């Protein structure tokens, strides 16, 4: 080993604490990068493999009743690879010990073969035996949520008739990674069941012998989905086609996509901040080392080493630290990515996990860290080249303050010498102070943005379940009912108030933009489920026209006064051209509202309702629920608090977990920069501090000079952190907003309060740690050595 390289190793050992700290910052940046991209590519890979292995359809085409022969016609559509017809319908499942019946979707399985499309993964037991009408497969997530096992008996109401089934298999399906009851917004494992029955049994139950009510299609590789949808719709139109839709609009898939989108947004925003901080720290430490070693550099040069060789020596040091950090980050990233992907696998109900490291994340991680090191190292090169051996070996000239001195001379009458020292140091190194300020502000901005978004979530819950929906219980019917049904509900035990609604599935269009959702008819002066404006004031339903949620209006690119085209998917399936009367403020879903009478008029079905919101005496729930179980027209009952809890859970889990992790990590970098700044300024000023102590300044007085700078940095960082956090919160909110919920942004004092307090705490702790070092300074040794 060459002597210079041995020096390198010993130097690294000498500054091991600081080198380690920087390597860790680099490592955290690389780790996040590798972990996030590894996790995202694993999830995407797993999803793709799962979909492919269990042949998830590319197109779903619900229909009222179509004969089997139509399947052949569908298969002839250009671009279609395979077609499956199945029967599906709603059911209510009675769970022992539960006062509320649970909504369920029942699906047919071909009896003599595996399904061509939308196959299931059997995790336990077996499929229903041929000819058995009382055996079911149950979705695993639901079975888990209710502790149901093989052999248990379920009682379910199908098409008005109550039947019992025995669970013979527990299944997972790529179609139901997230399960959401029809008409509800939030996936909830416990409140929605999926059952598979033999096709014949189900055809009989739903009176669909020799017919199907949902076609599934897979496409040939590279085939365009849009023309297929059009062709399917035109083929199924006369059989009551309800509008074919692509996989990307399928509920469960859309949820997973939104989750992955949220993770991606985070993975793009955070690691670069770490790398920037690492580059800054490397720059400071190495340039400090070079100035401390000027004498040695002079010597080495005097021996005849070239500038390039000397520069290379220090360059190696910087790059070694960066590479060590990057290597650590890559290893840690793979480990953490694997662990997290495992967690997400369970959360998203994936039956297996294809772990895939994203090799480009290694490359970019290493590249960025080396680049960060190089940026820090370039300044080193400049310093080394500038030193001639003779100059280097003379004692260093004192740092030149003559420029910044002039600026503070004006303050002479107000400031004592220690304050002047602090101020001049700040003014002399504006670049460095700026770097530290930006670093701390970035950390604070990141954590306050994450916290803003978290409290934004609480707004979503409060607005949705406090302001817009003021009911206790919502009821939906299997099919539309006469409006007198609302009066029947009002007579049930504990019911204080009933407010009927009419909701119909619809595709809303504006030019090429479309959204598959629903239109809800509200009564005049609705009180329990309302449309509200930005100030939470009621929006009166217009006699004609439609009120769109802001998110929906944005999706369609439409505003108040414009006209929207609504393809209603029920009844005689009219296509309505409606004027957008108002834009409503909603934070969940993308609803559209009409006057219930206007909607019924347009459908040609006056006096019909499809559900109701109710206010209920809290003590009467059990009696009410048991009464509702006996009302055959009731398809589902939702307790608002359950929906709220499910939403909260959804927000906290999955992509939500990452928000907590990011807020925490942001706190860690903030502390890292604050502490490093304090350490570095201590390293630079230890000689001055020793002088002060010798002159008779107390430890506290000496610490003031050191910590004064830190205090200025922190005070400057706080307002900038607020601004950065405010800006970042818009980006993070946009990244996490889905068409399920929109996170409101705005200035959230509490988030900035917490983040700011954390910064101040970090400064206090760092100050305390560094002050302890002041106490340990060997005054004599410091003063009698040359710098």
């Amino acid at each position, binding site marked *: 080993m060459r002597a210079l390289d041995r020096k390198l190793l010993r130097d690294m050992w000498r500054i091991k604490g600081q080198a380690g700290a920087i390597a860790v910052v680099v490592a955290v940046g690389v780790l996040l990068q590798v972990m996030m991209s590894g996790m995202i590519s694993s999830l995407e890979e797993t999803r793709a493999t799962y979909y492919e292995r269990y042949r998830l359809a590319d197109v779903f085409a619900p229909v009222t009743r179509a004969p089997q022969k139509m399947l052949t016609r569908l298969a002839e559509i250009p671009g279609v690879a395979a077609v499956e017809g199945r029967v599906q319908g709603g059911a209510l499942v009675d769970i022992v010990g539960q006062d509320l019946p649970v909504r369920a979707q029942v699906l047919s399985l071909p009896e003599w073969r595996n399904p061509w499309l939308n196959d299931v993964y059997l995790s336990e037991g077996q499929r229903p035996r041929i000819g058995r009408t009382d055996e079911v497969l149950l979705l695993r997530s639901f079975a888990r949520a209710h502790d149901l096992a093989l052999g248990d008996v379920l009682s379910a109401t199908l098409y008005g008739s109550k039947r019992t089934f025995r669970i013979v298999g527990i299944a997972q399906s790529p179609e139901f990674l997230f399960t959401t009851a029809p008409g509800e917004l939030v996936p909830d494992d416990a409140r929605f069941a999926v059952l598979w029955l033999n096709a014949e049994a189900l055809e009989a139950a739903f009176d669909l012998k020799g017919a199907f009510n949902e076609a599934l299609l897979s496409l040939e590789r590279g085939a365009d989905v849009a023309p297929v949808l059009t062709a399917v719709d035109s083929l199924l139109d006369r059989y009551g086609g309800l509008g074919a839709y692509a996989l990307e609009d399928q509920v469960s898939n859309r949820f997973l996509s939104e989750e992955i989108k949220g993770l991606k947004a985070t993975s793009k925003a955070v690691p670069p901040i770490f790398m920037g901080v690492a580059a800054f720290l490397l720059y400071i430490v190495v340039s400090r080392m070079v100035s401390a070693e000027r004498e040695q550099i002079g010597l080495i040069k005097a021996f005849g080493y070239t500038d390039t060789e000397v520069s290379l020596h220090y360059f190696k040091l910087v790059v070694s630290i960066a590479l060590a950090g990057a290597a650590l980050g890559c290893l840690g990233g793979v480990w953490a990515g694997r662990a997290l992907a495992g967690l997400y696998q369970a959360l998203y109900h994936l039956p297996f996990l294809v772990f895939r490291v994203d090799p480009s994340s290694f490359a970019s991680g290493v590249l960025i860290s080396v680049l960060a090191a190089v940026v820090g190292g370039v300044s080193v090169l400049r310093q080394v080249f500038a030193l001639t051996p003779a100059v280097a070996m003379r*004692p260093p*000239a*004192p*740092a*030149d*303050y*003559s420029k*910044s*001195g002039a600026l503070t001379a004006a303050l002479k009458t107000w400031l*004592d*010498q*220690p304050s*002047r*020292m602090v101020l*001049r*140091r700040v003014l*002399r190194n504006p670049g460095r102070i700026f770097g530290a300020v930006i670093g701390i502000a970035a950390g604070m901005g990141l954590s306050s943005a994450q916290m803003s978004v978290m409290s934004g979530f609480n707004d979503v819950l409060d607005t949705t379940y406090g302001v817009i929906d003021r009911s206790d219980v919502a009821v939906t019917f299997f099919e539309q009912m006469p409006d007198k049904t609302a009066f029947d509900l009002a007579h049930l035990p504990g019911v204080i108030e009933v407010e009927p609604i009419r909701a119909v599935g619809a595709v809303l269009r504006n030019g090429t933009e479309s959204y598959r959702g629903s239109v809800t008819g509200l009564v005049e002066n609705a009180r329990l489920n309302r449309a509200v404006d930005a100030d939470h004031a009621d929006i009166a339903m217009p006699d004609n026209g439609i009120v769109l949620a802001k998110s929906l209006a944005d999706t369609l690119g439409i505003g108040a006064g414009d006209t929207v085209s609504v393809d209603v998917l029920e009844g005689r399936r009219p296509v309505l051209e409606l004027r957008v009367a108002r834009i409503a403020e909603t934070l969940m879903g993308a609803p559209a509202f009409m006057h219930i009478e206007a909607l019924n008029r347009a459908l040609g079905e006056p006096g019909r309702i499809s559900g109701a919101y109710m206010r209920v005496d809290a003590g009467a729930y059990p009696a009410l629920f048991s009464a509702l179980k006996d009302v055959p027209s009731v398809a589902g009952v939702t307790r608002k608090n359950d929906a709220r809890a499910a939403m909260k859970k959804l927000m906290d889990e999955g992509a939500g977990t990452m928000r907590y992790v990011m807020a925490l990590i942001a706190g860690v970098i903030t502390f890292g920069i604050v502490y490093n700044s304090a350490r570095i300024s201590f390293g630079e000023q230890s*000689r*001055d501090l*020793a*002088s*002060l*102590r*010798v*002159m*008779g*300044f*107390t*430890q506290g*007085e000496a610490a003031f000079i050191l910590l004064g700078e830190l205090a200025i940095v922190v005070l400057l960082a706080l307002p900038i952190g607020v601004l950065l956090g405010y800006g970042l919160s818009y980006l993070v909110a946009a990244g996490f907003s889905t068409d399920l919920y929109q996170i409101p942004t705005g200035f959230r004092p509490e988030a900035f309060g917490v983040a700011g307090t954390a910064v101040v705490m970090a400064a206090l702790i760092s100050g305390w740690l560094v002050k302890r070092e002041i106490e340990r300074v060997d*005054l*004599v040794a410091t*003063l*009698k*050595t*040359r*710098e």
Partner: protein
Amino acid sequence: MSDRKTQPPRTTFRTRGLTKVYGEGAAAVHALRGVDLEVPEGEIVVLLGPSGSGKSTLLNILGGLDRASDGEAFFQDQNLSEMSDRALTMYRRDHVGFVFQFYNLMPSLTAFENVELVTEIAENPMEADRALQLVGLGERVNHFPAQMSGGEQQRVAIARAVAKNPTVLFCDEPTGALDSATGRAVLHVINDINRELGATVMIVTHAAATAQMAHRVIHFADGAIRSVTENDTRVSPDEIAW
């Protein structure tokens, strides 16, 4: 040169069996091995001796920068060995001026401000202007250290040390980094300060010639005093052969 022996001398420092050991066991280094010493008030005392002989260690203990391992050191009537850290700090603040080989000025303060740094906290300081005049640096008071020569910086360091009207002035190799002419000028300043302020001055140096300006010369070797000589005739710094 005035003759101080006509007045009964008061003692500034008195030590008894002063011992300093660095490290432990086999690695222990005995920097001082039982030093007994008396330094009369108002004298210039020069400590001579090879490197590692213990002279700087003695200076540091008397200056309140370090503590003895054993023995006693008195400043006037106060036992330095028994003082708390805080009391030592106050002792340095009110009574002690230090001058080092490397000037240790605050680079961010001008010459004037460096002196003010001390006058702002000391008990009984002189005007900063006067301290700078004493060292002959009247004109460059608003320059920063980076704008001054080594000799000028050392003179600022001395001005800073004397501005508090110290009882004792400690100089550790004050001319070590200076050329002979500048060194001589610095010694001149130190001599003037002793004469005009009456401060006791202790100088540690390798330059044996410096001894000629002292009232008393202490020779150190191996952590102990070898000899103490009193100069009957002192030589002005201007005449010291360098």
